[in-house]
């Protein structure tokens, strides 16, 4: 399976991919050459990197799991130097979260999501570790943490201390409930934040069991993105004024912010949105439908025009007449009837046939891909969404590529999740200019 996946995966060099995709449809031939290209295994030290938007920005990622760290990942993909500071013995618990690999300190989730980092071990529960950490802070632009609010303060690393060590520092704090408010000390994970933020309540069939909305760490990514956006804004502000600041992100807020008009419609009309199964409250037909070969497609007729096209694809154009279901209002009123018609039509054909007929009429339609479908998909391949990297001792590891794609300065993946402490010596020696003896002493005392 590894080899099979490897062949389908693409290089890490987005620039190159873009050239390829613009070179029309010769994907099949170019892929193999891309994979054999020695550039793939080239380590970044061998050649100066082209300038990227975040070049010269140093990020200290003190976070665990995903919520804060995803912010560091995206900045790292676009050129920031990311130092992952971890406990010398345990490291980030993310190293143990997910599917284990032959590398004892790395699950697959860690390898993918700790991309582009250097690992530096420092024990912040020891006073000497705190002092060392503050030296690092003096040389950093951004610090990211996601401990329970109060933890950094207990270690003597509150904002006043950090800001004094480096007035230009930007401090991203991600937590389940934020740094303020009555619940701030509660432990929070994305799974809890999905529930608290109102998303989980909406996933599932009406009156039935609320299910996990897709994946358990979904909200962590949202928070990481809001965090990264906050950092970019704060960097602009700092470059103008010389002053850093704090960004306070609650995971539940990142989830709640994305629920379109749910607050406005409760506020104005008292409407409590309920679970909608595979559908949507704003449009019909808009949902998931089972095909004859027991697979699924999504169809989204957001507008009347889209429904007209679907009616045409179904060879029943009369359905889109104003006397029948031409208007969204009428379709919403006759939700069950309209859905039933679509259910029957989709159920009478294999998935490929449904897709072909819909696409011929420009109906918004798509397969409900599982990961096997995704690996087979020509569009994922053409866009370079699956990137294969050779990891020592593990072979090929395939991970999602960089998003978004920038035309002049595409991001890149230089390395997967690093071994614990792989850059401790380098950073202590070169950045903090400690002597070899000093480093040895710190190591013996398990401070680093």
């Amino acid at each position: 399976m590894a080899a099979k996946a490897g062949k389908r995966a693409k290089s890490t060099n987005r620039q190159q991919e873009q050239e390829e995709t613009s070179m029309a449809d010769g994907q099949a031939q170019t892929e193999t050459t891309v994979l054999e290209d020695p550039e793939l295994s080239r380590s970044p030290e061998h050649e100066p990197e082209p300038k990227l938007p975040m070049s010269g920005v140093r990020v200290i990622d003190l976070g665990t799991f995903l919520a804060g760290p995803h912010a560091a990942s995206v900045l790292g993909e676009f050129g920031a130097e990311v130092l992952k500071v971890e406990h010398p013995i345990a490291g980030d618990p993310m190293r143990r979260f997910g599917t284990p690999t032959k590398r004892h300190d790395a699950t697959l989730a860690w390898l993918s999501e700790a991309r582009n980092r250097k690992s530096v071990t420092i024990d912040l529960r020891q006073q000497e570790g705190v002092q060392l950490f503050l030296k690092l802070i003096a040389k950093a632009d951004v610090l990211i943490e996601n401990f329970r609010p109060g933890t950094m303060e207990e270690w003597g690393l509150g904002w006043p201390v950090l800001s004094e060590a480096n007035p230009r520092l930007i401090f991203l704090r991600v937590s389940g409930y934020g740094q303020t408010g009555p619940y701030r000390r509660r432990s929070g994970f994305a799974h809890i934040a999905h529930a608290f933020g109102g998303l989980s309540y909406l996933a599932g069939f009406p009156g039935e069991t609320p299910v996990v909305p897709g994946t358990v760490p979904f909200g962590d990514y949202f928070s990481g993105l809001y965090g990264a956006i906050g950092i970019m804004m704060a960097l602009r502000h700092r470059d103008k004024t010389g002053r850093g600041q704090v960004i306070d992100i609650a995971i539940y807020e990142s989830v709640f912010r994305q629920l379109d008009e749910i607050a406005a419609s409760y506020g104005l009309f008292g409407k409590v949105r309920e679970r909608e199964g595979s559908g949507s409250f704003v449009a019909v037909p808009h949902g998931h439908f089972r095909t004859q070969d027991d697979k699924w497609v999504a169809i989204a007729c957001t507008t009347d025009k889209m429904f007209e096209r679907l009616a045409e694809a179904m060879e029943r154009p009369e359905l889109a007449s104003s006397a029948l279901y031409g208007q969204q209002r009428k379709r919403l009123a006759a939700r069950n009837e309209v859905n039933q018609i679509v259910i029957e039509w989709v159920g009478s054909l294999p998935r490929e046939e449904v897709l072909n007929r819909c696409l011929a009429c420009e109906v918004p339609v798509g397969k409900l891909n599982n990961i096997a479908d995704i690996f087979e998909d020509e569009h994922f391949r053409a866009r370079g969404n699956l990137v294969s990297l050779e990891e020592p001792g593990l072979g090929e590891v395939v991970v999602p590529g960089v998003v978004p794609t920038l035309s002049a300065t595409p991001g890149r993946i230089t390395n997967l999740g690093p071994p614990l402490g792989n850059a401790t010596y380098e950073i202590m020696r070169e950045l903090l200019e400690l002597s070899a003896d000093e480093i040895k002493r710190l190591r013996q005392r398990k401070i680093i």
Partner: protein
Amino acid sequence: MIMTNQTHEDALPLSGIRVVDVATVIAAPYCAGILGEFGAEVLKVEHPMGGDICRKYGTPTQRGDTLAWLSEARNKKSVTIDLHRREGVEVFKRLIEKADVLCENFRPGTLEKWGLPWEALHEINPGLIMLRVTGYGQTGPYKDRPGFARIAHAVGGIAYLSGMPKGTPVTPGSTTLGDYLTGLYGCLGVLMALRYREQTGIGQYIDAALYESVFRCTDELAPAYAMFGMVRERHGPTHNDFACPYGHFPTKEEGKWVAIACATDKLFARLAEAMGRPELASSSLYGEQKTRLENRHDVNEIVRDWCGSLTRDEVLKRCYATGAPAGPLNNIADIFGDRQFHARRNLVSIDDSDLGETVIVPAVIPRLSETPGRIRHLGPKLGEHTDAVLTELLGMSTEEIGELRKKRVI
């Protein structure tokens, strides 16, 4: 529920940045929305007849525009220009000359058809940054297919994972998640491109695909398939690939659920304590993740029985007391009553003079200590700012504007 801590406009991180938002619905416009919250001037360019279809997406208000529009077009100025007309394209080009960022989400080829390909825009304004959002991106075999977030959830792999095992896959909570997600990745791209432009003077475009934003957020789905051939399936209310207990559990009260997430052994020990059964976390029983995963049915059963014997508040109170990670499955009514939402001012009331009503919308995030964002007004009326922008920004005369209006170019 009123936002405090207003920043002086000039001090906001994006003051002085002008964004032209010619996009529709939520994805690319959400990027413009965030930039506007932090000080950018956002000009929403819309078709003179009807405008952005987001005005019709969701629950209508007396004004005709929906609540989704009022909330998500916050802070924008509406300028009507018909880009299907040559004269409209000329006005638009003059606007681009004075813009820093352009957000668009037409199907690939549309801007080109109007004589506005990237090369032309870049020539007019070499520092321009353009965010392009589509269902499938600007390249690849599916680039011309229509795409909405619903489709992107399906193609990107997240819809397949939502629902009961072997049951009908359900909407992953909300049909527009992928739009917001893409708005976020797009906004990040724009901010990085702005940084690069300030250092080099060079603009660029960002090619964002809805399905890619969704797929990027699927943790180890791809590496696990590539390495072990694992195809992840729907798990219903509990997700025990990595940890147990991890899921939704019903309480004694009909319709009230709690979420519990024991990602580590320590967190399970706290839950065991909350349940009054600390022995469950001993190494001979379920103290280790590995053992819990092997016995997930038993462990889930124990937690389900316990939750089912108490009210929601009792379950939560006991969990909070020991630090076990738990939370309510809030509906929007719960949210409006919640102390944390109030304390964090997550709900902002804005008096809309046109509606004569107060509209409550989600507040600005992220929360910045020195330069917090702000909501100055809700979604504008169609063409509300056309005259002001054409006069003040482009220096057009009243006659010129009258002429364009007569021809329905604006």
